[in-house]
């Protein structure tokens, strides 16, 4: 086993330092070391997107990034999305529009949608469907997720 490697990552606005195994996945660092268990693991091959976080502002599947590769970066997870007690418009949209059932894919889906709305604040339905096609949901058939993202886009446009 390799020697532990020092890393410093800014996670949800807090500077976190640790010594980690070089093979430790970012998602496991978040979940196991930092107890940020809102980020989930649904596959191991970057197909499902349940583990999606924002890495330096870009949606990234944290199951295929080593923690050491995120050294010096900023990571935002679902736990860091709300503004204090006020839900992010996407969280609010998913709640209002019944954009989730079992909830397992939801944090990753919301983080992907956050990236989508940063790049395209008023996406069409087709653009939303394309934009979240890196994320699998087995419960909803995506229709309410599309509605949720539209809901969020409209609210963000108003504010």
């Amino acid at each position: 086993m390799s020697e532990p490697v020092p890393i410093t990552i800014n996670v949800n606005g807090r500077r976190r330092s640790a010594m980690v195994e070089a093979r430790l996945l970012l998602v496991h660092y978040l979940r196991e070391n930092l107890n940020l268990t809102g980020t989930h693991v649904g596959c191991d091959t970057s197909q499902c997107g349940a583990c999606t976080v924002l890495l330096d502002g870009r949606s990234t599947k944290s199951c295929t990034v080593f923690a050491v590769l995120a050294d010096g970066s900023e990571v935002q997870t679902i736990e860091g999305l709300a503004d204090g007690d006020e839900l992010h418009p996407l969280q609010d949209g998913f709640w209002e529009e019944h954009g989730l059932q079992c909830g397992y894919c939801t944090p990753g889906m919301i983080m992907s949608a956050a990236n989508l709305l940063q790049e395209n604040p008023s996406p069409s339905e087709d653009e939303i469907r394309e934009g979240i096609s890196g994320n699998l949901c087995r419960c909803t058939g995506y229709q309410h997720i599309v509605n949720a993202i539209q809901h969020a886009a409209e609210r963000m446009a108003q504010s």
Partner: protein
Amino acid sequence: MTTVDGPVLPKLIGERVKRREDPRLIQGQATYVDDIKLPGMLHLAFKRSDIAHGIIQSIDTSAAEAMEGVELVITGAELAEHLGPMPIGTPFPAPDHYSVATDRVRYVGEPVAVVVAEDRYLARDAADAIEVEYEELPAVVDPEAAMEPGSTTLHEGFERNIAVESYWGGTGVNPETAQPEDDSAVDAAFAEADVVVTQRMLNQRLAPNAMEPRGVVAHYEPGREYLTVWSATQNPHILRTLVAALMGLGEHQVRAVAPEVGGGFGCKINIYGEEYAAAALSRLVKAPVKWIEDRTEAFLTTTHGRDLLGYIDLAAKSDGTITGLKARIIADIGAYEVLLTAMIPTLTGLMMNGVYRLPVVRHELTEVFTNKTPTDAYRGAGRPEGLYFLERAVDMLARELDMDPGEIRRKNFVPADEFPFATQGGLVYDSGNYEPCLDKALEVADWQGLLAERDAARAEGRIVGVGLAFYVEVCGLGPSAVVPTGGWEHSGVTVERGGKVTATTGASPHGQGNETTFAQMLADHFSIPLEDITILHGDTSVVKQGIGTFGSRSQAVGGAALISAAGKAGDKMKQFAAALMTDQEVSPEDLVFEDGRIQVEGAPEVSKTFAEVADFAYVPVPLPPGMEPGISEEAFFEPENNTYPFGCHISMVEMDRETGETKLLKLIAVDDCGNVINPLIVEGQVHGGLAQGIGQAMFEEVVYDEDGQPVTASFMDYVMPRAADLPTFELDRTVTTTPINPLGAKGVGEAGTIGSTPCVVNAAVDALSPFGVTHIEMPLRPERVWRLIQENGGQS
């Protein structure tokens, strides 16, 4: 009318109430099994077979045992000293099946040894370091070949690999004797038929793929002689019963918890070897242990669904009247029978009656062992298979007779005035009214407009088709006579001090939203705010009894138990309220719940608040004669029959002539699930079901090679629908209530999965019909479609 101060509470049943589960889920605050950490917890990793069939000759665990931080390495044979063969939940004969293989492996992924280690990565390293030698045996992959005399058999005592054979036919099963009546009527019907359609069809093997893989944390406390098991399960009470039995414990010594569960779809009904092994290993190593499945393990070892081959014949008159059905079905059940394996394909034949009057039926079923992952329930569990076979055959008949697919169905519907309707298979459909549902679907879809659109597209040289399917399914499982685990459900309702309400349900949800719908029902029942109600579930130490969530039973059975318990609690509230109003000579029978008060009906000034009465119940001075303090009631609900929801799905597809790619342009679903508590949640259930049914029609298939090696063991190879693959669904409903439960609700969890699959394939065949195509197998892979086009010269 006199009024009192205070809010008027809206009725919530039937309203689009947003879910109470969601705040924790959208903020990353929910606790799934993998989020549980216990002090001193160790981690499990399983060494699994990489061959489909073989005899274990040796297992070398020395390298694994030598690793620092490895607590224990144990083989299947060693573990069998602590755990007997796994129980199954059906009455069919079954070979012994151990949590971890003892001497022989029968599918790729079957566990052969387990590592217990300090860390998850280390446990996996150690499992990888175990060396296993096998004497390989021929892999049995094709179920029809498996049944040939002289084929390699998987299990001693199961000749030709046949697990179950059943046969019934004629004009139906005689309920007195359970024997088929006059079988010659079937042959006569086919001999006299004007037209017969015959088709071999495969309802292919699928992987359920709940987004949360399976996982378990087990903690045996030797001092207390008490075991706690947290598991991603649909039915913690069944888990408790079975784990207790296999561990030699009583149910009073086991607590099972389903924490937040990330989807089930049937594959989390079974109690798996990993769950038993975790419990036994926690007792062995005297520490809590955790195992979390990875996705490849899920493809290899979590139960698969479907995999039925059907030889279907339908006889009819030239006017489209169906006169007989023959179905010979071969179910490839994989290597072992697990909890409900053998029962699932039996539902297929029972539900192949569909929505039609079928004068005569012959049904043959053979369930066959092969060297593949065991099968069990997958969303719909037997009904999608049966309805697919039937609705494809009816569509072929319509095409043969050049009849409209809606009209041929209408002609054969069970008429509304014939319910309750007894089918040839011995089921009794509770209620139904099919014509209005068909009419509404045709109207919502603008069927004639769709046909015109299709024809116009064809005139432009495009490959476009429309399809229709009409299903009926069976929901609300029970009753106990047909569900091996018991078919009832349990609920508890406690009115707390201060007038808040805590309720429990044995219907353990994993996405269905019971915390919301059950609270809606109680809010209306007691006329109190939704926020004053908490619904607890999923923990056998909190929920006294239960069966679980499967077979679209949460509302129809669990909801009925809730209403029953609430009725008892309400009666007691009224008795305490009357006792508080003795000066006004109020009788409990005169009282109603209204806007947070308990009042004389029509006289709100004669009332007490809900909270006042609740407080009095816990400090009842003086205690009314004949009463006990407190309000905590419970109820079991045993349904007298199943419910039979139905619906009509219509779709339009287009195929690319050059690539063979199919695009789903439209899907219209008109479903009838009886009364609806929360339309938002019902829509979500239908959407999700549609996506899974479309997934089967268009994308999904578990594939094995000739050596029994799975070639679809990750999301890279097993294609599930993504957002861009699906259109916006158009939904509507008709409402035919059921007399089976007081809610009039039938169940909706599986509906979408059942109608959509044949509906999409019927559209695909319609699209390809100008090329002379009469059937296409699922999934609609581009290569398959392209070949059919090419075989016919690429020209329509």
